[in-house]
């Protein structure tokens, strides 16, 4: 197992270098001169030249990449030329919001998707299964902005159970924080449970055809033990994969949901950086989010090994 982890960790190095290269090229390959962007169209050529020298923009691209990477490795991701905040400060303020949203959304999506998938697989072809498969297919085609607006309409405007938009930090008032988080998390969960349910259902149905399930029945085991102990674990590899991808994606912020519900998360930081052409923030956030995604995939790989001993022992 230790060898397995070490080997997977080594794979991370080239991937992270590739992520940093791609991220850096965003800022460098975008049309327009960064100095002009900062100084505005009233800038004199002398001012521009001076700023370019200050920022090292007159250096060759590989040199700029290496000095940026050197800074990153020492924890210096740069500083916004608009707000003066460092990238780490900006991300540090907003990351907890996005992570909380992501966790709640995953809990919701798994909480809806997994039990439904198990019930459907156990009674595949039955009327409940057909109804749920159809519903999941329908839900898959509902865009998040629509379900967000509908949820706001019902729960905030009509029933007045929950606030429509806004945010209170968890540390300040946990109860209020959760009240603000319910609708955005539910919006994301509604978008994600159908895919969770569909992959787990079809994997489970395939697993239930296996000889070892027939043997488990022939051993006289209870139906619940067959489903949860014998069938669920070997069926959950794809489930783990898509959950990992969902988590990785949401670390980068849920742009639409954060915008609709006015949550100060990574997604809105990113949008703001794009709209104001704050390239240092953009580049830093994309790099951190990319790294988060890569590390999430690493965790998924480890989970495979936990779920399937054949992967752990290098047989598959």
């Amino acid at each position, binding site marked *: 197992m230790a060898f397995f982890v070490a080997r997977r960790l080594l794979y991370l190095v080239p991937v992270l270098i590739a992520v940093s290269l791609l991220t850096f090229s965003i800022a460098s390959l975008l049309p327009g001169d960064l100095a002009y962007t900062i100084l505005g169209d009233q800038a004199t050529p002398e001012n521009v030249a001076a700023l370019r020298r200050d920022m090292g923009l007159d250096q060759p691209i590989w040199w700029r990449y290496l000095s940026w990477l050197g800074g990153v490795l020492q924890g210096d991701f740069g500083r916004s030329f608009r707000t003066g905040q460092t990238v780490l400060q900006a991300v540090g303020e907003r990351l907890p919001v996005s992570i909380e949203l992501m966790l709640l959304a995953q809990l919701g999506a798994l909480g809806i998707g997994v039990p439904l998938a198990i019930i459907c697989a156990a009674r595949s*072809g039955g009327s409940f299964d057909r109804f749920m498969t159809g519903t999941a297919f329908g839900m898959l085609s509902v865009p998040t902005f629509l379900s967000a607006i509908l949820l706001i309409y019902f729960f905030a405007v009509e029933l007045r159970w929950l606030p429509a938009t806004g945010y209170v930090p968890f540390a300040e008032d946990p109860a209020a924080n959760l009240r603000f988080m319910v609708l955005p998390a539910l919006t994301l969960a509604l978008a994600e449970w159908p895919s969770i349910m569909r992959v787990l259902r079809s994997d489970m149905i395939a697993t239930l055809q*296996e*000889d*070892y399930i*027939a*043997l*488990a*029945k*022939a*051993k*006289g*085991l*209870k139906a619940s*033990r067959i489903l949860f*102990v*014998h069938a669920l*674990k*070997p069926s959950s590899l794809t489930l783990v994969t898509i959950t990992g991808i969902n988590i990785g994606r949401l670390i980068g912020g849920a742009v639409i949901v954060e915008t609709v519900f006015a949550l100060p998360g990574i997604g809105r930081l990113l949008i703001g950086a794009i709209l104001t052409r704050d390239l240092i923030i953009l580049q830093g956030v994309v790099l951190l989010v990319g790294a988060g995604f890569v590390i999430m995939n690493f965790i998924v790989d480890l989970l495979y090994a936990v*779920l*399937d*001993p*054949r992967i752990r*022992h290098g*047989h598959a």
Partner: protein
Amino acid sequence: MTGNSLLSVEDVTVNLPTPRGNLRAVDHVDLTVGAGRTLGVVGESGCGKTMLSRAILQLLPKKAKLSGRVMFDRQDLLRLSPEKLRKLRGRSLAVVFQDPMTSLNPVLTIGTQLIETLQEHLELDDAAATRRSVELLAAVGIPAPEQRLAQYPHQLSGGMRQRVAIAIALSCEPKLLIADEPTTALDVTIQAQILDLLAREQRRRHMAMIIITHDLGVVAGRTDEVAVMYAGRVVERAPTPDLFKKMRMPYTEALLAALPRLDAAPHTPLPAISGRPPDPTRPLRGCSFAPRCRYAVARCQAEKPALEAAETSAHQFACFHPIEAHAGADV
């Protein structure tokens, strides 16, 4: 017939709906197994022998339709509540499947798979169940049984896995063990070991056994009675010595002739049974073996021979033109 037998299969028919129409996998089969006795069920692939075993275990696919009666230990398995059936399976009715590569759960340890069976049926605490598991693994000839409990199926060879599957089947001292092609997926050198193990444990535990196989060589000398199946029907049924001394059904003869022989001269062509079994979705009017039978006459195509007893009541066969004077082959 039901009197003192442990298992009696009475007029069992299994129909499977398929896209090509209804498939009659098992066609009016009658069989009995007495306590402690061994029955061999022989036939080529697709003759319905596995479906018959699944019918006895009540493990048929959901869409399959089963008619007839399966009496086991004075209980009608078809009428048993799911809960009573569950308590019976693994406890007094156990099974070993064909392929030990797929019949053990790849993500659970050998120990878990043994202990869960023990704890489901016998009231054992963890320590007692573990002790019993070690004894069982040792009994089926697995070296270092304590270490095996923590291992996963993929860490064991095919023969070892089949021994684990047998240990699981034997764990609760069943009254009947159904071994469905227990050696087909194994190396030839392992086959005899596994069959001997099954025979030894059967004698020791006084349990009844059904060995399902396509290999007449497997049942010879290891069974009390043999039923030969073809196209879903039992076509010949006799005490094992009688069958090998005087087989009456041409199919049985052809099946035996198709066994490769050690004493044959090199490059002797194997007398394979030409043709294929009939399409089970299109039942034949006459004898289902007639199209491949070298003794077939017009009557065989038109009329279905019934399974009837001949000189002794124990030896039954379904043929209008049984083989008369063939001396038994020495297998």
